């Protein structure tokens, strides 16, 4: 394969189309590369592809770049890019769609944020409400031995929170409508799948 061919094969329009078809994916067509999201994003300095380049890579069908970028996992949901985008792209919603796609495509260990979000959801759906102390334990348990070092770094914060009763160790309340909630979720998830 010549160098030119190799370069050409890096960009796959079918991959771009695959991403346009995910939930909120269609909005990614609207990006005009103005870069306002980049100067807006509070997490840009930690991103390997800042939002403008991320959208360009998607539009270009640059599979390798898109799949390895940490961009969506650093989104804090602050919504500033969404209110500023001159093309009206709900960037926060696009990032939700990308994170779901990446976790489905590459597995839950694709990024700590994928595992944390999934664990949060599992605890919430089972109980109807969140229970932070349990969520934290479940997350580190699933994250495996490598995460223990990270967990240890948070001991001081956790201790202060437990001491001030802001991280109750006793189970939080559960709701009566747990099975109702599960049915609503399952129906909505099925509808989302149908629509995309």
């Amino acid at each position, binding site marked *: 394969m010549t160098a030119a061919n190799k370069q050409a094969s890096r960009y796959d329009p079918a991959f771009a189309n695959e991403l346009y078809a995910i*939930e*909120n994916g269609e909005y990614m067509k609207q990006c005009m590369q103005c870069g306002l999201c980049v100067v807006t994003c*509070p*997490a840009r*300095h*930690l991103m390997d592809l800042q939002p403008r380049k991320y959208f360009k890579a998607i539009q270009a069908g640059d599979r390798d770049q898109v799949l390895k970028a940490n961009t969506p*996992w*650093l989104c*804090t*949901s*602050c*919504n*500033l890019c*969404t*209110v500023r985008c001159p093309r009206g792209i709900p960037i926060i*919603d696009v990032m*939700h769609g990308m*994170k*779901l796609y990446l*976790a489905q495509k590459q597995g839950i260990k694709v*990024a*700590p*944020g*994928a595992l*944390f*979000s999934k664990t*949060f*959801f599992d605890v*919430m759906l089972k109980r*109807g*409400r*969140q*229970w*932070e102390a349990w969520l934290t334990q479940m*997350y580190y348990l699933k994250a495996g031995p490598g995460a223990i070092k*990270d967990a240890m*770094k*948070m001991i*001081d*914060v956790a201790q*202060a*929170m437990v001491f*001030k*009763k*802001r*991280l109750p160790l006793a189970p*939080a*309340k559960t*709701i*009566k*409508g747990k099975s*109702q909630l599960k049915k*609503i*979720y399952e*129906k*909505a*998830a099925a*509808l*989302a799948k149908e*629509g995309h």
Partner: protein
Amino acid sequence: MGYIFYPGCASEATGKASFISFEAVVKALGMDVHDEIPDWNCCGASLVANAVGDLAQQAIAARNLALAEKAGKDVIVACSSCYLNLSWTNEKMKIDPKFHSQINEALGAGGLSYSAGLQVRHLIDVLINEVGLDKVRERTIKPLEGLKVACYSGCQTVRAIRRPDFDDVEFPVMLDRLVEALGATAVPFPMAARCCGGAQQFTNPELIYDLTGKVLDSAAENGADVIVTPCPMCALNTDAFQDKIAKLKKKKYNMPVLFVTQLMGVAFDLKPKDLAFPYNIVSPYKKLAKWVKK
């Protein structure tokens, strides 16, 4: 018509002080807020959509709206993340017929429905636009004269849906007006609607240290005695992580972080238990010694 309260999961843990002081302030002002939404569930925060997508999260959030509609009351929310999810789902149902029918199809699986006829209002919005600052001034027994406050609205509070009648999406001022009505001084605070890093404490802690550090720096540089916020996530990051960030940056902040209803409770001279100070990690007693005895 009155309001029905959506407390949110933080009200039972990290934001317990918000819950306690909210209930006390509502009573002190005689606000028409009655009961919690019966059997309310988690709104999904800023995490569930990552795991299941927007439609599924919004259907989960909409269960609360359907339950509120049964009670026939508009919804009042104190937590910014809950406000984002509930108000945006509500708004989207009003403007997007396809979304409206999809949500109702999902709710139907649980025997519920929602016509999208309710309003979802943030506590600050209701305090400013319904209760009114005159009433707040009138109820203030101990004006907080001399107290300098950094008013940290938080990002999701003002950016959930664009409501010019509520506040500006980038440079909010409503919290400043509220704090001034209590007799305190709102210091200039350019970080008022900037992100604290949100819920990434475990997944990208360096982001929290950086962004929350900038918020604390800005409050300190502008001479604030305390930070005031309605948002449990802003409060958690600026309060619980303050000591850690101070050590990392080799600084000393000593910056108590209060929920806005806690500060209102001080000015309204409410009982110590209503102020819920024991939940604060950085103790507010010293900075508020003029108005509160420990």
